[in-house]
């Protein structure tokens, strides 16, 4: 599925909140069909980077190019129109809407007819194994189902790039397995994915390429093996002392 076509290029992007530099001249490249894991300790700037790509923040510096369009500073709904959809770390389902309706809202972006959008939503519900809660309201869903629902909504928009913010946080191992299965399935359909995740085992098994962010900078990137074997990765998570000791 992986092609050579570069679809997303984040170049020299920076964002500061007051004196706090959240993203510090970061770079990121993604090819069509690629599944990138974005990792890093808390506060490394992962979610901020997502917010910059998805249009929730405008960067202070740098460029973000998606399929030939400069998207830095664009509004979230325009970014989504171009084909980037995101999920949220704290899930945001439409509480009074059913699972089907939640996903249907995403499908309405490219399919104005509610009837047709509903049948798209039904297919996605099947793809995500959410059939049992198809008619349950967002307010009634469990955490893993809310996470899947958000993934379903991003797919429904017809986006080619999905930004998934911790889709497995707070889940038990069997639930994580289920989400992993779904993510592999939608990646195999040709969608590119960038995933922020703290569960290293999950990220390592899912992603071919890992980017490690630390204090707003891309500290290192490479295959899962390259990243895990790099002492800088251990240092970023556990501190320099620990890295020195383990050497």
């Amino acid at each position, binding site marked *: 599925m992986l092609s050579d076509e570069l679809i997303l290029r984040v170049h020299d992007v920076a964002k500061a909140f007051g004196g706090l530099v959240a993203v510090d001249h970061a770079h990121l490249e993604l090819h069509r069909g690629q599944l990138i894991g974005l990792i890093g300790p808390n506060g490394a700037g992962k979610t901020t980077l997502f917010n910059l790509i*998805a249009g*929730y923040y405008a960067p202070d510096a740098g460029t973000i190019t998606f399929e030939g369009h400069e998207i830095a500073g664009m*509004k*979230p*709904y325009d970014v*989504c*129109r171009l084909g980037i*959809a*995101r*999920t*949220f770390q704290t899930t*945001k*389902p*439409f*509480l*009074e*809407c059913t699972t089907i*309706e939640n996903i*249907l*809202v*995403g499908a*309405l*972006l490219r399919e*104005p007819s*509610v009837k047709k*959008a509903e049948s798209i939503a039904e297919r996605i519900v099947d793809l995500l194994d959410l*059939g*049992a809660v*198809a*008619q349950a309201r*967002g307010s009634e869903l469990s955490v893993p189902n809310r996470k899947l629902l*958000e993934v379903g*909504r*991003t797919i*429904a*928009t017809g986006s080619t790039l999905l930004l998934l913010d911790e889709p497995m946080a707070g889940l038990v191992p069997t639930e994580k397995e289920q989400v992993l299965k779904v993510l592999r399935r939608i990646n195999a359909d040709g969608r590119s994915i960038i995933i922020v995740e703290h569960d290293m085992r999950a990220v390592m098994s899912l992603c071919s390429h890992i980017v490690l962010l630390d204090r707003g900078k891309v500290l290192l990137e490479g295959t899962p093996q390259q990243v895990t074997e790099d002492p800088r990765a251990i240092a970023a998570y556990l501190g320099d002392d620990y890295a020195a000791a383990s050497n």
Partner: protein
Amino acid sequence: MNSENTTQLGLEEAARRSRRIVGIVLAAVLIAAGLALPFVVRDPYFMSVVILCLMMGYLSATWGIISQTGQLSFGHSAFVGLGGYTSTILYTQLNVTPWLGILAGGAVAVLFGVIIGLPTLRLRGVYFALATLAFASILQIVALTTLRIGPIVIGASPGIQINLVNSGDAPQVFQFQGKMGYYYVIFGMLCLVLLLSFILNRIRIGYYWRAIRNDEDAAESLGINVARYRILGFLLSCFLTGAGGVFYAQYLLAVDPRRILGLGFSTEIALMGIVGGWQSVFGPVIGSAVLVPISEFLRARLSAIPQMTTVIYGLILVVFMVFLPQGINGLIVKAVKELSTQASRRRRHRVEKTDA
């Protein structure tokens, strides 16, 4: 597991279908009853309360179109007043029939809606609610103190009177003898607005409004231009409210700035929507059907204490906001859903028994 799912889905489907049938029958019965009412009831006081119910129902239903997007207007009297003043000025000074005044009144309300809505509906939070409240107060003060703007007579505090034509028997200029004509006009307007809201709720814009009022961030992440859909809802609400103002002016044959532009009137419109269920199509009408008779009753009993109705309104508002945010409509929906699901479950149970 799987067969359980299909049973569950089948149950939902059956319940939904029976709800739809009940809904259509109910709508048909209500419309028929509405059309027949003036022939059955001749008491003019009763009719005037019914017309007031319908008019407040209409106004809170049009108010409800903006609240569907999650923003509450506390100054909707401004748009009623703009509509009423526009058609009245056009009729009394240029002899334009108020029927055309409906379009003009709606258009003027939309014009001011753009000025209020464009900046504030881009913001989150209470700015819109505050702006509508402020706008209504300013408009009332302007109307109370301005005798004329250039050649246009505003009338200051007495407002503008509309002269009777042919002792009221002049449908071509929106005047009727007795109550029956007004009754059918407002009944028709209410039916149209409800039908419109009902349809809007089932197409894309309605789904987008629901998404926006549930979560703006999530709505934006799915490609929805939140500000644009909010503004669309608001302008539609302004137009229809302005049209309602024309009816109000013709029914009373006057525009009185203390009443038509009063903040108390704004509060009443919002209150009926909130009590009935501000996130639903029919809620506002239910609210007015319940509250108008109560307030008429109270007005007659408590006329010695003029502010008493306001106090009671305030209490009702607080109680509903705290204990029943979905309003009366929410209660009904819940009950109907429960009943219809139970009914189809029983039916299935019977079928399974006979199969066995």
